[in-house]
Each structure stands twice: as structure tokens, then as C-alpha cells.
């Protein structure tokens, strides 16, 4: 996002709308005497478009130029109005558990593990994303990356989690690493994430997906309890109403 220096009057009305915080500085116009305008820190801006959509600028100085690769990945992952064509799903991730009732993405004994860097409200550089992805893949825990996920698309080596070098300096409001592993490897995956969290200057949220069996305890809950992990009192729940229904082995009898 940029502010047209010939229009901007530095009224500051757009400042609070920026999810990345105060990333604007003042500059003095070199041709209009006395005119002050704002410059948006292009390294800190994620091109999410929120300030523009807020329609708060009284002189329509804000504008989003069409950005070339690799900067265009900022808008793709940060602006919710833009769809990443590789995933064919609006948003930053995949359909994950939302369509598990018809696709069988997460079978009994499997768990989905997602790591969303930069969330909430801090932002993350792709070099941070790479650090986490490479830590997960290096541990060789059978973590399978979701092929249609945007971050997976930006990897130059999907076996190591290495991202393309040209995107490492780019930043997004958040970027999700998505994949799955066997339930028995979940404690090791969580330990890897705990360790790598200490090395980052940003934040990430962690989410775990499971198929709920027809009877008995939700399989991931004993793992959380044994590891002493905090987990949310709220959850995302698939109602099983999609059609045609995928037949799971634990539903056959």
C-alpha cells in the first residue's frame, strides 16, 4: 500500500486501521511548500488493503499498486479478498477439516497440525515460516505437508521445508503451514514446535485436527493432558452433513 504524496495531507486517519500497527512516517513534500505527507514503511506493510477498504482517507491518497513477484505474495496471503489460485480456496489455507466428512482428509489415527505464523496481529516474514517448516521436516516425524496450501507452493524443496529464496524477505499478516501426521507422533511434533518457538521474534498459533470416533474420548485430548498443554475451550466442529459422506473405518460397523 502506498500514499500518493501529491494528495496526502498527513491527517493520520488511516493510522489506526493498520493491522501491523504504526508503520507510517512523515515526509516533507519537495515541491509543495508546507505540505507534509505520510510514507508507509514498505517492508512492514503486508498489502492487506485494510486501510483502503476502510474508505477513511478524505483525499483518496491511498492506493494499492499492482506488485510484481515476489512482493505480490504479501497481498495474496494478507488480503482476504484475494484468492490463492493454487489452493482453489478463498483465504490463507486449505479446506482442512471443514470438508473431512466428504473427503476423508484426516482418517482415524491421523491428526492435522497447522502452524499459523504471525497470528494474531503481529505478522511474519517468510524466513520465519521457513524456520518452522524446516524444523518440522528435519525431525523426520512423517509430517506430510498439505499439497494445496499456499506456503507449500512457495517451497523449493518440499522434503526439507525450504522456501524459495526470493520470498524469504516478504511478509504476511499470517501464513499457515498445514499438514498431518500419525497420532502417535503428535507429542514429538509439538515438542519441535515448542523448541522452535523460542527462536522466533514473531508469534504463531498451533491447531490440531482429529476425526471424532462414534464413541469414546476425542483422541487428541489425552495427548494434550499428558503433555500439560493448554488447549482452547472453543473448537471448530464439522457437523458431518456434507454429501456424499466419506465412509470412515470407525463408522463401518
Amino acid at each position: 500500500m502506498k500514499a500518493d504524496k501529491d494528495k496526502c495531507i498527513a491527517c493520520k486517519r488511516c493510522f489506526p486501521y493498520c493491522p501491523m500497527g504504526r508503520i507510517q512516517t512523515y515526509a516533507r513534500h519537495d515541491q509543495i511548500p508546507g505540505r507534509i505527507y505520510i510514507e508507509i514503511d514498505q517492508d512492514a506493510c503486508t498489502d492487506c488493503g485494510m486501510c483502503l477498504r476502510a474508505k477513511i482517507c478524505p483525499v483518496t491518497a491511498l492506493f494499492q499498486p499492482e506488485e510484481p513477484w515476489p512482493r505480490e505474495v504479501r497481498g495474496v496471503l494478507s488480503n482476504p479478498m484475494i484468492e490463492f489460485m493454487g489452493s482453489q480456496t478463498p483465504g490463507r489455507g486449505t479446506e482442512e477439516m471443514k470438508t473431512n466428512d466428504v473427503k476423508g482428509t484426516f482418517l482415524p489415527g491421523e491428526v492435522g497440525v497447522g502452524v499459523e505464523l504471525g497470528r494474531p496481529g503481529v505478522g511474519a516474514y517468510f524466513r520465519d515460516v521457513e524456520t518452522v517448516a524446516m524444523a518440522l521436516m528435519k525431525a523426520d516425524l512423517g509430517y506430510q505437508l498439505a499439497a494445496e496450501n499456499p506456503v507449500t507452493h512457495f517451497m523449493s524443496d518440499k522434503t526439507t521445508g525450504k522456501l524459495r529464496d526470493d520470498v524469504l524477505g516478504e511478509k504476511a499478516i499470517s501464513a499457515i503451514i498445514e499438514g498431518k501426521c500419525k497420532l502417535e507422533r503428535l507429542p514429538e511434533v509439538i515438542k519441535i514446535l515448542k523448541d522452535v518457538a523460542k527462536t522466533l521474534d514473531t508469534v504463531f498459533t498451533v491447531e490440531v485436527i482429529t476425526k471424532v470416533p462414534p464413541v469414546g474420548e476425542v483422541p487428541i485430548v489425552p495427548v494434550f493432558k499428558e503433555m500439560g498443554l493448554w488447549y482452547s475451550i472453543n473448537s471448530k466442529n464439522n457437523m458431518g452433513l456434507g454429501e456424499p459422506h466419506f465412509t470412515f473405518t470407525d463408522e463401518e460397523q
Partner: protein
Amino acid sequence: MTHSLHRRGTRESLSGDFVVLGCPATGVNKKGSASKTRKFLSICYKHGPINLGDMKTGNIYNTTMDDILSRVTDGTIVECTFDNREKIVALLKELNEDRPGISVIISGIPDIVQQCMTEAGMGRIHSLEYSLGTWGNTERLPDFEILQTVTMCGHGMIASDLVRKMVRDVKRGRRTIEDCCIEMAECCSCGNYNVTRGKQLFKELLPLYTLHSLY
């Protein structure tokens, strides 16, 4: 995409907070799903959501229901936010009896969601996703009281500075709480922002900050 998952709050606050998503599945029922998604939206609308939208079009606070319906295409994911469990029970009863065919997901407290499903004559939750919270340099996060509001938009479009500025504006008598919450709903284009919960959280924020500690 987990934008309705990481909502922060107490059990009391979250017990009136439900995000209902309708999602077609790529490679299974996405082709020809537009009519199913419209049917899902129409059923949800009938049961009185506090918010409803599609991230690529906007929500009922920045466009119209007719516009949202007309711009649904194959693959569109739609979201409807409700502020009480009785509406969820009635909605689930209808969705169970007259299934649109796309996957239906409800973000909320799982034991309350399960109770609603049981009352609607449904079985157990099919699949579930838990948040393990926020890790890393958490000192960079805003206060928990502000996080409760900003995490209602999972895409992070409600800036913590905006919440602070709005609290200041209300304290100065420049704006009403209602006006501020509607604007926050406009920022969250998907329709995930629960305006009822937002107003309550806003009231709780007011005594916590002095004018000089704000944006």
C-alpha cells in the same frame, strides 16, 4: 484456513458465540455447489444471524444479502455468526432435515455445540479442531482484553490500534459503542465478527483504560 478457530475469551463470553460455515469440497461436490451454498445461506438467514458474509464479497454490514447471494459461485465459502444457542438448535434441525449437501462447520464451545446437535436430533461431532494457543514472542501481543475483540476476525483485519482509538472516541463522547462495533464488523469482511459479543466486550474495555493510555 482456521480463521474462526482462535477466538479468545472466557467460557461465559464464548457461550453465545457461534460461527457457522458452509464449505463445498474441491474434487467432490464443489462443481455445481453455488445453488447449494445459496440454499445454505438462505436457511441460515432465516434463523437470524448477527452477521453473515463471504470473504470475497463482504458481509451484511457492508453490502446486502441479495448482493452476497448473487455473487456466490461454485466454491464460495460462506459464514454466518449467531449469538445464541437456541438459534443454533433450530438451524441444525432444519439443516439436518433439508441438507444443502455442502459441509457445515460450527465454531464454538464443543460441549455446547454437541448439546445443540443432540437437541436437533443429530449424532456426534464428526471432526474437530482445537487451538493450542499462541506461541513464540507473545510479548508482542496486545492485552488479553483487546485480543478478545481482535481475534473475532481471524484474518486479522481488526487492528488493535483501532480498538484503542474507538475506546478513546467513546470515552470522549465522539461515538457510540454500537457505531464502533458496526465499523469493526465492516472491517471483518467474512462476517465472523459477533456484534452482540463485540458490544459486551467493548463495555468491559471502557473501565480498563484511561484516555492517556490509549492510541
